[in-house]
């Protein structure tokens, strides 16, 4: 009973912690925004995306917001004597929600500021810290971006990704960027961020966006896209969630847990049966057949294993969050893990309780009686 109990509890806790770790990694990736689609110009030809493309996408059903992005790479950003370099991204107020931008200070570009083409800027956290001031100190100050003065109206929180590039950025109204920095040949967007409506299907919307862009760009059927459409967050989270490394790691943990738990269960059950060899001898002496012994021990092993397994499953489910807390992982015993651990513990318990008893039942009663 104790063996099966400990075995199944340990297996459940371990699997839960493993799954918790996997879930926390996946969710961290997913927090990039699973409803985000991005369109970038096609590989060979830059300048295939126009603001018109962005508004066309914005009117598609299933699209809740669109943020066109007009980037000027590596512009000098100067605050008095301090200088740093960051790309200027001209966009609209939608970028805050589409790109899931969080403010630490001030606010993001408003619709009004965008329509009126005001010289206001929102600094990424790295761009802000490179200017040597706290976000609070930067608010309301004027920075020169490639010689054009912008008033700082907000500072972003760090995106917390593995690379810092997402934080080294200066956002400004797309109208302002267009007016001061635009390419004389026309306005070419560097990206269009698309927020898909919560209820809409990602794949369907992606297909519609692709269709809309192809027809706007008058691409003949069969020709390659002159843009790249990707579902970054989903790709990433699927890639991470399904990554072989993480999966194998989890399977490895579960396998080790099952193995260790199984050995523990089998060991305790074996010891129990050995201790009871004398009892088997007594029962045979008074007329029990092999099958009587086998059946008795099978029934006992089933009862004990079911009881121990159930209690262990309960204890494991309760212990999992506590164990997870120790290692800073939100570990919740998934029903799958509980079922697997319970079934495996019961099977091992039953076999380890029953098979050796069947072996002992084959002994001559006198031999079994002499066992200590």
């Amino acid at each position, binding site marked *: 009973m104790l063996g099966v109990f400990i075995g199944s509890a340990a297996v459940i806790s371990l699997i839960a912690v493993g799954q918790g770790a996997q879930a926390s990694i996946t969710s961290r990736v997913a927090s990039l925004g699973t409803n985000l689609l991005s369109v970038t110009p096609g590989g060979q030809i830059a300048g295939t995306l126009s603001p018109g493309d962005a508004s066309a996408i914005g009117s598609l059903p299933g699209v809740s917001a669109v943020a066109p992005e007009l980037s000027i790479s590596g512009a000098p950003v100067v605050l008095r004597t301090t200088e740093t370099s960051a790309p200027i991204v001209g966009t609209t107020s939608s970028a805050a929600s589409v790109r899931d931008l969080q403010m630490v200070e001030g606010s993001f570009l408003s619709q009004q500021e965008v329509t009126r083409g005001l010289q206001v800027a929102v600094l990424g956290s790295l761009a802000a810290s490179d200017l040597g001031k706290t976000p609070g100190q930067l608010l309301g100050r004027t920075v020169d971006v490639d010689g054009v003065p912008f008033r700082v109206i907000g500072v972003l929180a760090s995106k917390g990704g593995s690379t810092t590039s997402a934080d080294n950025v200066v956002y400004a109204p797309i109208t302002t960027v267009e007016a001061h920095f635009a390419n004389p040949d026309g306005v070419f967007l560097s990206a269009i961020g698309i927020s898909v409506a919560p209820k809409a299907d990602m794949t369907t919307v992606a297909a519609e966006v692709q269709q809309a862009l192809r027809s706007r760009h008058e691409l003949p059927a069969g020709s390659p896209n002159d843009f790249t459409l990707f579902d970054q967050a989903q790709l990433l989270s699927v890639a991470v969630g399904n990554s072989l490394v993480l999966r194998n790691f989890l399977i490895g943990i579960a396998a080790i847990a099952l193995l260790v738990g199984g050995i523990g269960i089998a060991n305790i059950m074996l010891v129990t049966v050995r201790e009871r060899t*004398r*009892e088997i*001898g*007594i*029962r*045979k*002496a*008074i*007329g*029990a*057949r*092999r*099958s*009587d012994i086998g059946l008795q021990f099978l029934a006992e092993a089933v009862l004990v294993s079911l009881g121990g397994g159930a209690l262990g499953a309960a204890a494991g489910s309760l212990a999992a969050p506590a164990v997870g807390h120790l290692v800073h992982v939100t570990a919740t015993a998934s029903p799958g893990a509980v079922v697997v651990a319970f079934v495996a513990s019961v099977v091992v318990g039953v076999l380890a309780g029953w098979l050796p008893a069947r072996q002992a039942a*084959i002994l*001559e*009663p*006198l*031999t079994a*009686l002499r066992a200590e």
Partner: protein
Amino acid sequence: MAEGRGGVAPFSSPVIDATGLQRIYTVGSSTVAALRGVDLVVRKGESAAIMGPSGSGKSTLLGLLGLLDRPTAGRYVIQGTDTSTLDDDELAALRNRAIGFIFQAFNLLPAESAEDNVAAPLLYAGVRRPERQRRAMAALETVGSADWRSRRPTELSGGQQQRVAIARALVGDPGLILADEPTGNLDSVSGGEVLDVLDRLRDEGRTIVLITHDPTVASHAGRTLRMSDGGFLGEELCSTEPDGAGA
């Protein structure tokens, strides 16, 4: 009465009829001949004591007579049934029906009450529960142990345990009672009580074979067989009841 006090009754049918019983143990590469071809006839209603030094093969013989072990060679007929061709299940059924065991170490099932211990042989005989309980209680009463029916073996003294064990040996009304040093683990008082019970069984005409180191215990039996080095040395008949002697 020709059969009084477990004396030999030549006209009664043999309960035990063993010829040339051998038991050779193999331990690693060496062999131990614990029994070197023993002949024994015990007739219905007889009581026989087996004596002999330690290691002379007494328990080995009793194990064979009780179908707890198989002989290396020899023929054993118990109550008319030749046991040499029986399989494991048939031997179990025969033990259950024909033999009651009393062990030196009592050998009760530790997790079960006295009553369940006594009823256990009936369980394997397929007797239904109410009938099992009724007969277990009756058997406990014959050994004066009815008061302890719900106690576990650990809650009983050695003498009490042995009386429960005797009740278990009697419950199936077997034709043969085998006892290996039944008083060996008991003090003289409880040993005496157990002996009284055995005397009563003998007087009821039950067939009893017991092993003992104690001449007093042996003197209660109709015959005393002496063993040495895996064989019989000789036999004494009960001096107090010489009538019916004819073996």
